């Protein structure tokens, strides 16, 4: 890697070059016959999922189907009780997996910029951490709120801070657990566009757990439907970006997924 491409990899938007997982076909992670049991309750069973680096994967399912558990395995919050989970090569200068929760989970006693710096724990500190945090806050449009307390922000703004915190360490994999579920419809669409824009710029591997089928087909390259702990459908979304919400193509895919969920 040349110095120039290194610099491009560190900067956040700038180039259309894929800074992460730049080698085509490289794998981000793979589940092999992975299962998870809590006591005698089997939550996930025989999951086989191979995800190439840079892919935007959406995971859909009814509540209680095990989709959040899948994400927790991925984030290392839980361990599979059977089978395996392997990751691709870890790249230097990147945190491996970052997690975005359903709730913003900001520290109320830390300013917005300090909250974003939490995402750099063990990566950078001091003036460098602050600068990187301010840069990413600019990306999510909150640079002018850097020194305020989280309690004065709206719900959508808090989730944007949480997104900035997740992304500031340039993760290879970003796991999102219904992070937009609690937002109102308009803020939600805005957040989806922001997420897509940043994903295109930074090209991390995104795993979005959602119960919103329209959101899944609008954002993802690939949609996986989980039902009763197993993968019931694995569907590519071969639609060019930028995608037009409500287009016939997306609607057709949405219908197919809904049929599978309720058919």
């Amino acid at each position: 890697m040349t110095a120039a491409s290194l610099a491009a990899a560190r900067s956040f938007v700038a180039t259309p070059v894929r800074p992460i997982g730049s080698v085509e076909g490289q794998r981000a992670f793979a589940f092999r016959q992975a299962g998870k049991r809590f006591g005698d309750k089997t939550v996930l069973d025989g999951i086989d999922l191979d995800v190439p680096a840079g892919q935007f994967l959406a995971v859909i399912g009814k509540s209680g189907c095990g989709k959040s558990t899948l994400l927790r395995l991925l984030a290392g919050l839980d361990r599979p009780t059977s089978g395996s989970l392997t990751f691709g090569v870890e790249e230097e200068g990147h945190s491996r997996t970052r997690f975005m929760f359903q709730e913003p989970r900001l520290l109320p006693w830390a300013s917005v910029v300090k909250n974003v710096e939490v995402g750099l724990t063990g990566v950078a500190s001091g003036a460098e951490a602050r600068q990187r945090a301010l840069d990413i806050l600019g990306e999510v449009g909150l640079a002018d709120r850097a020194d305020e307390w989280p309690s004065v922000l709206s719900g959508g703004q808090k989730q944007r801070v949480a997104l900035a915190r997740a992304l500031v360490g340039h993760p290879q994999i970003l796991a999102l657990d219904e992070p937009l579920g609690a937002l109102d419809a308009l803020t939600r669409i805005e957040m989806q566009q922001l997420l897509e824009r940043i994903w295109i710029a930074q090209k991390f591997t995104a795993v979005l757990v959602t119960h919103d089928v329209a959101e899944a087909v609008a954002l993802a390259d690939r949609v996986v439907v989980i039902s009763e702990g197993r993968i019931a459908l694995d569907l590519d979304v071969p639609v060019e970006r930028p995608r037009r919400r409500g287009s016939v193509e997306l609607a057709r895919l949405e219908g197919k997924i809904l049929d599978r969920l309720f058919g």
Partner: protein
Amino acid sequence: MSFATRLHSNAIGWLLPALVIAGWEIASRAGVMPANVLPAPSAVAEAFWRLTLSGELVRNIGVSTARALAGFAIGGSIGFALGLANGLSTISRGLTDTTLQMIRNIPHLALIPLVILWFGIDEEAKLFLVALGVFFPIYVNTLLGIQSVDPHLVEMGRVYGMDRRALFFRVILPGALPAIFVGLRYALGIMWLTLIVAETISASSGLGYMAMQAREFLLIDVVVLSILIYALLGKLADSLARLLERLSLGWHPAFQNG
């Protein structure tokens, strides 16, 4: 809130005490209130001046304050340490919490006879009682504060790679701080209360001792003066705690715009 309005709202707080004192003075001068029941405020002020000039007042306030602070430091730090330990470790909590809750239910002032037998009327007796009185509110509230820290935030800290030290200083301690401050203010009240009682019963110096001596010689003005000084010292301690609270809890919605 601007400085002027803050001054204004503080002034309102002092209006009522000022009115009470004025009414009291008028009642005393009119002879409604006999001087051997309650001396006039001007007589109390005179006693204040007399004792200030003789140096007696400053010395006794100094002695009492030193006792209060020393007892507070000992009891408070043990309570804080145990509260932290029991909040962070289930082993430690299992081992000590039941015992502490049993001791907590004994009114610490009931131990005075025993304490006098153990320590006589020396400094240790006062320190012991104050430390014991201060210990529980600090312990209970520190423990409560740590237990009430949002587990979601702790999980977030872990996921984002904080080690135990960072987790403690950046998530757990700040989260527990509001409850710890409640304990602190409560403990400051108990600190003065305990000290007054202890000094009144057994002491050879200090404000309580000064009041008891005055009672022997029927100097009611000095007795009233001691009581007023206790009130002022209590208020001073509370104000300091509030100031600390405002400085360190600026993030808390209850302390914003205020």
